[in-house]
């Protein structure tokens, strides 16, 4: 008989615990509502793509994905663009109030979105940005910009300072050095920071739901309305859920070795 190492056994159990609930969602998304409610089956007996067809052909459904993607991408671009120079400043220079500023950024990552939901709603309504993609993108900067600064700073610390000095001696100006030499050096860091901005903006619901009503409504908010007059459409709900998992699952492979560093705010 083959001996199984205890550690492999532990990991097996844990991964099973992680995957079974996800499997159940995937399983349900391929069932008809009659099968979901009528019988209890571990595999879809009557395999159907109906739920996915409904989502991918109905604009009120698939526009949710498009809206989410638009504001998530906007947010990622904004966050990384402003965070890059700031992270460079934090990693290379000391200046008046730098420690306080760095800490203040951290508190924004830690502040509960619930505190900000109502003021955001009023702020963006009063400047006429309510229900636009940019409003959500800006609101998510609250926690994504600090995160990006922290992660990028962590990566930049690993680049020796001599490189900067050599480049300046060679006559590079700051911006040319930054874009041509420095950014390629921390390309993986930028990738990881972008991934985390993407992810945290993608999984957030409270702010994006508060700031939108129709035009920029995210998929996550659309999902909360599957309760219709004819009862709950479980199959479609499950299919929509599966579709929201896919973007994360696709890119996770590329950042697997940096994922701890990202979650640790660049401090590993």
């Amino acid at each position: 008989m083959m001996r199984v190492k205890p550690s492999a056994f532990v990991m097996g159990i844990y991964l099973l615990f992680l995957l079974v609930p996800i499997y159940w969602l995937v399983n349900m998304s391929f069932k008809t509502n009659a099968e979901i409610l009528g019988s209890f089956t571990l595999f879809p007996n009557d395999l159907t793509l109906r739920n996915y067809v409904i989502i991918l052909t109905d604009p009120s459904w698939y526009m949710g994905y498009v809206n989410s993607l638009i504001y998530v991408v906007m947010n990622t671009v904004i966050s990384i663009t402003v965070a890059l120079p700031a992270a460079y400043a934090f990693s290379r220079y000391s200046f008046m109030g730098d420690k306080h500023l760095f800490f203040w950024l951290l508190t924004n990552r830690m502040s509960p979105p619930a505190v900000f939901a109502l003021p955001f709603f009023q702020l963006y309504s009063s400047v006429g940005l309510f229900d636009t993609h940019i409003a959500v993108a800006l609101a998510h900067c609250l926690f994504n910009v600090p995160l990006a600064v922290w992660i990028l700073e962590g990566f930049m610390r690993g680049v020796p300072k001599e490189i900067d000095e050599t480049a300046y001696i060679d006559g590079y100006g700051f911006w040319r050095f930054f874009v041509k030499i420095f950014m390629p050096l921390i390309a993986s860091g930028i990738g990881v920071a972008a991934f985390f901005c993407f992810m945290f903006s993608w999984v957030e619901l409270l702010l994006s739901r508060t700031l939108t009503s129709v035009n920029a409504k995210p998929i996550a908010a659309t999902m909360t309305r599957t309760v219709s007059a004819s009862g709950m459409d479980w199959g479609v709900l499950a299919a929509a859920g599966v579709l929201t998992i896919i973007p994360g699952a696709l890119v996770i492979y590329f950042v697997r070795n940096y994922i701890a560093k990202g979650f640790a705010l660049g401090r590993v």
Partner: protein
Amino acid sequence: MDKTLNNKAWFLVLPVLVLVAFSAVIPLMTVVNYSVNDTFGNNEFFWAGLEWFEEMVTSDRLHGALGRQVIFSAIILAIEVPLGIYIALNMPKSGFWASFCLVLMALPLLIPFNVVGTIWQIFGRVDIGLLGHTLAAFGIDYNYTNDPMDAWITVIVMDVWHWTSLVSLLCYAGLQSIPQAYYQAAKIDQATRWAVFRYIELPKMQGVLLIAVLLRFMDSFMIYTEPFVVTGGGPGNSTTFLSIDLVKMAVGQFDLGPAAAFSIMYFLVILLVSWVFYTVMTNLDKAEGK
């Protein structure tokens, strides 16, 4: 790394400052404004002083939500941190299986919060969910919509499912940075497994563990979406945590004054805890000579 003193670096930080000021300071000031004013609609405000704060500090509702929140965060930390360390110790060290485990473990972290709620809402239902159905088949009376105890267990198991991997991933990264020589030295000294853990692995994981505890504490302290989707704060008020209560008060009932006072106190707690962690963290960094 020693840094050069250069106050012009402020210009590089300026964009971040402006952006975060717009998305954090202005809203926060609005909250402060509400917390000291009373309104009868029509945008007319009356100075209320500290009235709302006094009301909130003595309100049973806030005490209840705060109590539940603290218990919830404590249970979450007590389960996830040891479990996360244990899992990290059992993970394959390198090769295909290491990547395999990393990717699968990170999966729950990337699921939108409300989908996490939906998954567990479905999973726990007695009529259509695997968990609820299986428990019912064993004759266990389980119903998270009626029984506060079951609701709590569901919310906690859901959070363990969702976030334990985060603790594991961080600890795993910490473990990877321990040079092989340490283990060899321990082997020569015939150190027990426990001694290796206690005197080599744990001290080396200190930094990442601190971050893991900070993140788990903070995120569980402001948890909103997942329990809201699963239980809606119920049955009754039994799973109404701080954020849920706050949103109910501010958006549901539009009690701006009390909600704002509530927010400020909530924010101050967060600020205090962040500061403690930050201080410990920077001291650790210094001690390691980074």
